[in-house]
């Protein structure tokens, strides 16, 4: 108990150091603030990757530490993006409408109608939907970034955990939630422009003078800051007593309940907290991506999130970050058409076509043979070995028991 937080968690310092060095290097190499060796689009890709690392962190908290395989965290990510995107789109359209106005100054009603026509002409209406009531105010929308996904997670989590839905049932249910949200947003009358989604988000109102070069670096900084803070918070949560209870719930929920802990409360707290982290990541991600549409929320995205965390190594915060960064960057490289074709003599493997197959199969292999994922490699390098307790682990559901102990 006399030890400080940092000395108990040496990985925090290493992680923060690595993150700062990475940010600094990218800044120095960037177009806007240095040597112009990294293109603006590459800076954006790196910034987006940091956001994905942040949501992977959330996923690791809820899955790796708590044992809830949520296949719905991208719903919160997308909702965060939508909330911030509403302000971006509204404010930018307002600037455009005002700058093109002539004659009489507009009444508030006229201004509102003109903005609505601009934004919703594409889905065939010119009425401002009720959900856009606060779109004119940045502080309100920023608050909604947290409130909307947080409330959704709270209500959904309360319903699900109260009914003691666990395991694969819960996974399917979270997947259903994302699907329902995506399908809802796909409708034109959902008030969020249907499958057109929100676009032009990369143009920040009031910051047009800065240009995309500088904006991209600023967003990289913001994403790095959010990731750093998120990592600190996550480490803080999992290192104390709270973290012990979380792991205990993962290993044997019933036993923790019998010990008198309010398991549902813990689960609900972590589920909602990770939803908030995901929403923040989304709010930072989509201004860099420039466009958001309901396809981003589809269940497949959340499953990929699980893939990243699994490949990185769950149950370790830096493993999740590593996995998200590695898989999403490699994925960008392969699907971007920049990877050289592989000539097998009888068949030329085009990676754009075969990357998915490779990803799927390597995922199966990681699940089968390297449950620790990439972080297991790091363990090997540092010479860290689990004590030999004879036999393979039986997985989180069987607790810390090993095969042999289970038989005895």
């Amino acid at each position, binding site marked *: 108990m006399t030890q400080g937080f940092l000395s108990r968690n040496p990985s925090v310092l290493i992680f923060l150091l690595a993150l700062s060095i990475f940010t600094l290097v990218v800044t120095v190499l960037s177009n806007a603030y240095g040597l112009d060796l990294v293109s603006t689009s590459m800076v954006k890709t790196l910034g987006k990757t940091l956001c994905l690392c942040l949501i992977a962190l959330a996923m690791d908290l809820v899955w790796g530490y708590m044992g809830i395989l949520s296949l719905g965290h991208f719903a919160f990510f997308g909702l965060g993006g939508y909330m911030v995107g509403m302000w971006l789109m509204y404010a930018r359209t307002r600037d455009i409408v005002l700058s093109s106005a002539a004659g009489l100054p507009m009444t*508030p009603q006229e201004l509102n109608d003109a903005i609505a026509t601009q934004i919703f002409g594409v889905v065939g209406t010119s009425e401002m939907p009720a959900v856009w009531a606060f779109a004119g105010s940045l502080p309100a929308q920023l608050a909604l970034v947290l409130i909307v996904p947080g409330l959704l997670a709270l209500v959904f989590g309360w319903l699900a955990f109260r009914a003691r839905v666990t395991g694969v049932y819960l996974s399917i249910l979270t997947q259903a939630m994302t699907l329902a949200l995506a399908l809802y947003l796909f409708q034109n009358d959902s008030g969020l422009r249907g499958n057109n989604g929100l676009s032009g988000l990369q143009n920040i109102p009031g910051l047009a003078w800065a240009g995309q070069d500088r904006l991209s670096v600023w967003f990289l900084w913001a994403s790095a800051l959010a990731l750093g803070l998120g990592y600190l918070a996550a480490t803080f949560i999992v290192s104390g007593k709270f973290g012990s209870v979380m792991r205990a719930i993962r290993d044997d929920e019933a036993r923790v309940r019998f010990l008198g802990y309010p398991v549902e409360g813990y689960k609900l707290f972590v589920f909602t907290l990770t939803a908030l982290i995901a929403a923040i990541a989304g709010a930072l991600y989509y201004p860099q991506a420039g466009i958001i549409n309901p396809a981003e929320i589809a269940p497949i995205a959340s499953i990929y999130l699980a893939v990243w965390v699994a490949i990185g190594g769950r149950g370790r915060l830096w493993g999740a970050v590593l996995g998200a960064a590695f898989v999403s960057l490699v994925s960008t490289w392969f699907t971007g058409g920049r990877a050289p074709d592989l000539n097998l003599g009888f068949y030329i493997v085009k990676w754009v076509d075969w990357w998915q197959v490779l990803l799927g199969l390597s995922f199966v292999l990681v*699940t089968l043979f390297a449950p620790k994922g990439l972080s297991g490699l790091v363990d090997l390098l540092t010479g860290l070995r689990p004590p030999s307790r004879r036999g393979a682990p039986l997985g989180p559901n069987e607790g810390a028991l090993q095969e042999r102990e289970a038989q005895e």
Partner: protein
Amino acid sequence: MRRLLLALAASLALSAPLCAQDAPSEPSPVAAEAPASGLAAVIAEHKADIAKPSRQSIAPVIAALGKAGPGAPDFLEAWADKALGSRKSDGAIFRVKKAGAGYALFDPVTGADAGEAPRAEISEIKPNAGVRGLIAAALIRFQLSDPDIAKRQAALTALSRDGGPQHLEPLAAAIADEPDPAIRAQKERMLGLLTIRFGTDPAARVAAIEGFGADLGLDFRAALNPLLATKRQAFNAAPEGNVAAELRPGKPGFSAEEAYDLLVAEGRAPARLTRADLRAALEAHIENGAVAGIPLADLDTPARRDAAYTALEGAGAVPAAATDDEVAQSVAAHRYADIYAEPDAAVTAAAASALKSVSLKVDAMHGADLALDALSLASIYFLAAIGLAVTFGVMRVINMAHGEFITMGAYTGYVVQQHISDYTISILVALPLAFAVTFAAGVAMERLVIRHLLRRPLETLLATFGISIALQQLFKNIFGTQARPLTAPEWLDGAWVLNDIVGISYIRIAIFVLALVFLGLFLFVMNRTRLGLEVRAVTQNPSMAASMGINPDRINMLTFGLGSGIAGIAGVAIGLFAKVTSELGADYIVQSFMTVVVGGVGNIWGTLAGAALVGGLQKGIEALNPSNTLAAQTYMILFIIVFIQFRPRGIIALKGRAAGD
């Protein structure tokens, strides 16, 4: 027989002109007395009118021709087809046909060869569209009593497309002699419809409407609806005409604004000043950055704009706009009513009550149709989910690649059809082959992956998901992204149509039957065979089953293969009506999960109940909001999330020891 008659008519017609010349201007008595000789006489009499027909004067001629006896229909047809010509020297009418430099001539009545004539001597007769319409109307009479049943049918079809008041009388005349009962019924029905629409006697029309009762035909409703069409009108005094309903402004459904708009539209009141007009008027009077002395920057609220406009009015710069008081006054000074386009009140009352009873019946039928739709959707979900339920029930393993096994089955069907061109045989081959292929794939997956992840269900879920994305991309690489055809055999084309509302395609019936067959098969295997006994034992308690000499590994493998094989067969069935793409299975996988989760694990009846609930719910919500299937799916999923609150283990949950935990 017909030719013989024509020849007879022709030989008589040769001797006809003599008596025809004496015939009075109304030739029908002659035609009635000597039908054989009538046509030629009538033609000869009216040859000038026939050669230069005009819409106004030709009607009696056509009527006379129509009554002129055998040969008349052919003659009229030739006339309408512009196949007649008149000889310039004496005006005689012939059927003409271009032949070389001149025309080949034929007798107008018999069609017998009548020599040739140079081009200059013949002028072709080209009746205009109006005349041709009259001729066609006259022809209907003959077609309706044509000996050829196909022609009668065609005439009725033509009538149902564009029947008119002129068809009433010939149709009524053609009913009595109709030998075929089906056609006769059709004719009577058509007569009723035409009477409703075009009849002149209100009593007859009311009788015709009541004669239909609560008939479900679309044509009956199409005949009724125009009768009940209303037009909203404003009146200075009491409403005139066939009033459907009198309206009071301010009541629900008819606001004071609408009333005033109606007055404006009818020219009874001046238009109100719209916001856009106000803005335009103000903008037209900007002077030195101000309007009527009010600076531009201040004109950003409606109140200030109104003030500026009033100021302009005072200066006489803009016309006075109707004030709210004037609007209220003129609205109050008028009465409003919906007026039927149909003037006769008895007819509209009968039509309204008929339509009401029809719509009641229509609603009931829609309900039945909906139930059929829901049943067919439920059987599709059942087929897609049953394999999933088997593996989940026995092994507690969620197979995310289940959807890809469905796709695999559909592609197997496609490949089989590439090699076997007969669709019936190819489907019969494809069904077992799809089972075999997906059975093998399932067994391979179980042996290679799932066996090593037993008792780690979440990891199994993820591993099978990895297989799923790999397979999906593999299908894309092999078969391309475009949809591949999987054609149903001809005997499955079409639909079983009960009436205009209730109908279901044969493919869906076949899928329903297939689902029933699988239900039966599954029940048999599970309850009546050694394999089923062992599967049930492993489901309930694997270690106890193992100690009784059952090999759980083998059972798991077989179960997984069986579940996958059923998915393959479901794939062939789904592929018959859906597009076969690499995403086919993924489209059904979430609904399949829902079915399993809602239904409960480890019991086939649970899956059945789940499929019925999910399918019925989806169709039911769709019916409430038919334009939006996305919303239906959204609400269905929300319902399921709530449903899980009350029955976390599904509709039919295993109890006691069988539940495992």
